[in-house]
C-alpha cells in the first residue's frame, strides 16, 4: 500500500472511474432485495422510496456532505492533542466548490462519495419497510448524507483521525476500511437499527404474548436477482474505494474482485448449509441476506486479505447473518424486514475486526485501530442516528398511520399498487 494517489496515472484513473460506474448496480441490488423482502402492497412504495432517497442523498452530499468528508490532502479542521494534530472534519467548500472535474482524485472521490451516500441510505429503507413514510425517509436520509456518513467517511477515508491512528499513535497502519464496510455498510446498518428501534415493529408482527409472526417477502425473484446485481456492483465499489482511499495499486484489482466473490460465495453456502441443517430446507431469503453479508464483510480488507482469508471472513459472515436475523426477531424483538441490521451492521463490523484479526503476526496495533473504529461506529454513529431521527420524529412523524399499514403504503401514500391486476386478499397477519 502506498499513499493515496502517490502515482495515480491514467490507467488507474480510468479503472477507478469505470469501477465507480458499477456502484449503482450495488444500489439497485439492495433496492430489489428490500422490495422483494417487503409486502406486495408496499412494493411500489419501496421502489419509489428508493429513488427519492437516492436523489436526496445525492443532493445532500453535493450541497454539504462532500465539504465535510473532504479528501486526504485537502484542507481539514484539526485539533491538537498530545503534541499531534488530529483531523476531525473536512474544510471544503459547499456545493462541490473547488473540485476540478478533470479526472482528478478529488473529482473521483466526489463521485464515489455521492454513490456511497446513496448506498448507505438504501440500508435503513430495508429495516423500515412497510411502515416508514416516504417524506420521513427522505428527511432522515438528508441527515444521514449531510452529517453522519460524511463525518465518519472523513475520519477513515478523508485523512481523518481514524486514518491517522497509525502515524499519530503508532497503531498499525491506522484504521483500515478498503471497501466501505464501515464508512458505508456499518453506518447504514446502524442507522437501520436506529430506525427500526424508533418505528417499532410492523402491526401484526408480534402477538400479545410477544411471539413473532412470519411475514415472508413477496418476491423471491427480486431478492435473488438483487444479489446478482449487488455482486457486480460490489466489485466496482471495493475496487474504486481501495484505489481512491487506501492507495491500493491498480494491479490488485483482480484480487479485490476475487475476494468479493469468495466472501459472498462462502457466506451464501454457509447460510444454505446452516438453514438446511436446522430447518430441513434451504431458506432463500436467508441465503440472499448471507450473500450480501459476505460481500459486506469481505469489503473491509478486500485489497489486503488473501483469497483463503476472504473465504474465512465470508463463512463467519454467513453464519452471523443467519443467527443474528433470528436473534433480532425472536429475542430482541427488533422487526427488520430486509435483514439490514444483520447484513450491513453486523457484517460490516465483523469485516472490520477481521482485518485486525488477519493482520500480520505481532501487529496488535492494527487490531486495536480496528477496535477503535468499531467503537466509534457504536459510540458515535448509533447514538447520533437514533438521536437525530428521534428529534426529526418530534417535528415530522416518521411512522405511517395505522390505516396506512392496513391498506398498504402503495395505496395509502401513492394512490396505486404495484400489481393492479392482482386480486387483493385479506391479510391474516393483521391482528391489532
Amino acid at each position, binding site marked *: 500500500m502506498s499513499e493515496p494517489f502517490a502515482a495515480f496515472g491514467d490507467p488507474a484513473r480510468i479503472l477507478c472511474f469505470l469501477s465507480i460506474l458499477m456502484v449503482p448496480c450495488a444500489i439497485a441490488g439492495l433496492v430489489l432485495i428490500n422490495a422483494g423482502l417487503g409486502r406486495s402492497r408496499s412494493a411500489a412504495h419501496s421502489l419509489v422510496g428508493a429513488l427519492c432517497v437516492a436523489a436526496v442523498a445525492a443532493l445532500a452530499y453535493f450541497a454539504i456532505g462532500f465539504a465535510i468528508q473532504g479528501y486526504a490532502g485537502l484542507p481539514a479542521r484539526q485539533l491538537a*492533542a*498530545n503534541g499531534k494534530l*488530529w483531523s476531525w472534519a473536512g474544510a471544503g467548500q459547499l456545493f462541490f466548490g473547488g473540485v476540478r472535474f478533470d479526472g482528478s482524485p478529488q473529482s473521483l472521490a466526489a463521485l464515489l462519495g455521492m454513490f456511497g451516500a446513496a448506498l448507505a441510505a438504501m440500508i435503513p429503507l430495508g429495516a423500515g419497510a412497510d411502515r416508514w413514510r416516504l417524506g420521513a425517509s427522505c428527511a432522515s436520509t438528508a441527515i444521514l448524507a449531510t452529517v453522519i456518513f460524511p463525518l465518519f467517511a472523513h475520519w477513515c477515508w478523508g485523512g481523518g*483521525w481514524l486514518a491517522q*491512528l497509525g502515524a499519530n*499513535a*503508532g*497503531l498499525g497502519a491506522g484504521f483500515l476500511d478498503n471497501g466501505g464496510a464501515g464508512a458505508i455498510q456499518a453506518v447504514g446498518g446502524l442507522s437501520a437499527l436506529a430506525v427500526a*428501534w424508533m418505528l*417499532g*415493529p410492523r402491526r401484526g408482527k*408480534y402477538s400479545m404474548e*410477544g411471539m413473532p409472526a412470519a411475514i415472508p417477502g413477496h418476491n423471491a425473484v427480486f431478492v435473488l436477482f438483487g444479489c446478482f446485481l449487488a455482486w457486480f456492483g460490489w466489485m466496482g465499489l471495493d475496487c474504486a474505494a481501495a484505489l481512491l482511499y487506501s492507495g491500493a495499486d491498480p494491479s490488485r484489482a483482480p484480487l479485490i474482485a476475487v475476494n468479493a466473490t469468495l466472501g459472498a460465495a462462502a457466506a451464501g453456502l454457509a447460510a444454505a448449509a446452516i438453514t438446511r441443517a436446522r430447518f430441513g430446507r434451504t431458506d432463500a431469503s436467508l441465503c440472499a441476506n448471507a450473500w450480501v453479508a459476505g460481500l459486506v464483510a469481505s469489503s473491509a480488507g478486500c485489497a489486503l486479505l488473501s483469497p483463503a482469508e476472504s473465504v474465512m471472513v465470508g463463512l463467519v459472515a454467513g453464519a452471523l447473518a443467519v443467527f443474528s436475523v433470528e436473534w433480532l426477531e425472536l*429475542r*430482541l*424483538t*427488533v422487526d427488520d424486514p430486509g435483514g439490514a441490521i444483520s447484513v450491513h451492521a453486523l457484517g460490516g463490523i465483523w469485516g472490520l475486526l477481521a482485518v485486525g484479526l488477519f493482520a500480520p503476526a505481532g501487529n*496488535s*496495533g492494527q487490531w*486495536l485501530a480496528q*477496535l*477503535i473504529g*468499531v*467503537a*466509534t461506529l*457504536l*459510540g*458515535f454513529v*448509533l*447514538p447520533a442516528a*437514533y*438521536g437525530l431521527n428521534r428529534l426529526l420524529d418530534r417535528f415530522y412523524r416518521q411512522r405511517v398511520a395505522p390505516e396506512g399499514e392496513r391498506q398498504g403504503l402503495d395505496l395509502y401514500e401513492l394512490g396505486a399498487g404495484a400489481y393492479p391486476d392482482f386480486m387483493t386478499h385479506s391479510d391474516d397477519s393483521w391482528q391489532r
Partner: protein
Amino acid sequence: MKLTGFLLLGAGWLIVLAAVAMLRTSASIGAFVLAGAAVEALGLALAFRAHRIWREEKP
C-alpha cells in the same frame, strides 16, 4: 432506560477518544480502549433491553 444505554454508548466512546488523544504507549491505549468498548457493550445491551421492555409493555 434507552437513554441511559445511549449515554453509556457515548461515554464508552469518549473513553476511547481520551485514550487515543492523551496516552502515549500502545499498552495503555489498549487497556483504555478495551474499557471503553466494555462500557459501550453495556450500553448496547441496555438499549436492546429497553426496547424489549418497551415493546412488551405496549398494549
